[in-house]
């Protein structure tokens, strides 16, 4: 037992020494590459799919973040979008699809139903996909605004870059808890109001 500990200690010392800088940089590069090439597997079961189409369409182009390529095989995808209500009958399918994905893999719960069951407080609906598969980002809304979806994707990208899977360490970029200045105060129609 003691010997094993000593070995770990030695490895750590080597890692922090000459090779430390390079290893850190390579890890950061890997995370950077991973967060900008999220191949998605859309597991769309319900009405949130309409909003998901809206996010992938040209107006709120998901491909600006490198996350647009859908792979309809879980083995080729990195990011599982669970979009919509998951019933008890679908739960084993979802779990199987998650298990078929090759690591590194991430899961986004899109919308209220996938995140926590929403108002489906009944015996057919799974109360949140985190009862079945580990979930990285929850996007609230019924359905969420495309802006909220992009916020969620940015949060996931920040999480990937940080390399940590622990919750509540990485915060969303516009967090109403800390800053409420991003409210859309002026309401004007027209193109110049978008800037």
């Amino acid at each position, binding site marked *: 037992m003691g010997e094993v500990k000593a070995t770990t200690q030695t490895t750590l010392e080597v890692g922090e020494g000459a090779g430390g800088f390079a290893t850190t940089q390579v890890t950061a590069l890997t995370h950077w590459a991973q967060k900008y090439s999220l191949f998605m597997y859309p597991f769309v079961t319900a009405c949130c799919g309409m909003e998901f189409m809206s996010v992938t369409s040209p107006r709120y182009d998901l491909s600006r973040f490198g996350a647009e390529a859908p792979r309809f095989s879980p083995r080729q995808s990195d990011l599982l979008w669970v979009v919509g209500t998951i019933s008890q009958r679908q739960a084993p399918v979802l779990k199987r699809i998650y298990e078929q994905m090759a690591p590194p893999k991430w899961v986004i719960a899109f919308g209220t139903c996938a995140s926590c069951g*929403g108002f489906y407080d009944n015996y057919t609906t799974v109360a949140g996909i985190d009862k079945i598969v580990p979930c990285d980002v929850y996007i609230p809304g019924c359905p969420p605004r495309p802006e909220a979806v992009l916020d969620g994707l940015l949060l996931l990208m920040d999480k990937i870059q940080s390399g940590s899977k622990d919750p*509540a360490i990485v915060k969303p970029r516009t967090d109403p808890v800390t800053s409420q200045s991003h409210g859309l105060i002026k*309401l004007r129609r027209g193109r110049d109001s978008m800037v």
Partner: protein
Amino acid sequence: MTQQASDYQGLGPQKVRGVVVRRPNRTAGVQAYIPELSKGLGITMKHFFKNTKEYMLGQRPDPVLESTTDGVNTISYPEQRRPYPERFRGMHRLTHRDDGSPRCVACLCCSTACPAQCIHIEPAEYPEGDERRGYERYPATFVIDELRCVFCGFCVEACPCDAIRMDTGIHAAPYDSREQFIYEKDLLMSFCGREGDQVTENARHEPGESTHPGVDRERHGH
């Protein structure tokens, strides 16, 4: 050559009105496939070279550049923001009274109306001697689970005191754990409306004021 289908024999008892279109003649040139293929590709290539020449010489606007100025524009979201509609139901907020306390009287109308049951209120009585004791209660805790909320706006409609509103213009933010979606009373009270207001324009009649409609057993003579 066309003829009315109702005149045509062999359509069955229900004579459907329509126009019969004859199949195109399959001449030897069409059947040989290659000449027609090269003819079609020739049209494509003709347009390709013509368009390329005109773009190079600047004789017509570039459709790619034109699409960046007009038509469907991509919104670079974190930098550019599209204005939300005026009645967009966003994050909840609790409005204030003039003295900064919440307008909520903990009547539980909103949590009863909520289809997702995402509002939790614990009402409490005002202390003895307070003007409002006997008239109303206050929320000791007011918790909204923003993940469970479906943004239907029933709570706003149910509220008799204009205490809860959804006019912040902020969409609910995503987080990576469920605990962070639990919004407490202090946070909900810190949100402002679109115009930065926290006090609503609806008048509130405090107990003790002459406009207050309520009476109870102890105080009915004001």
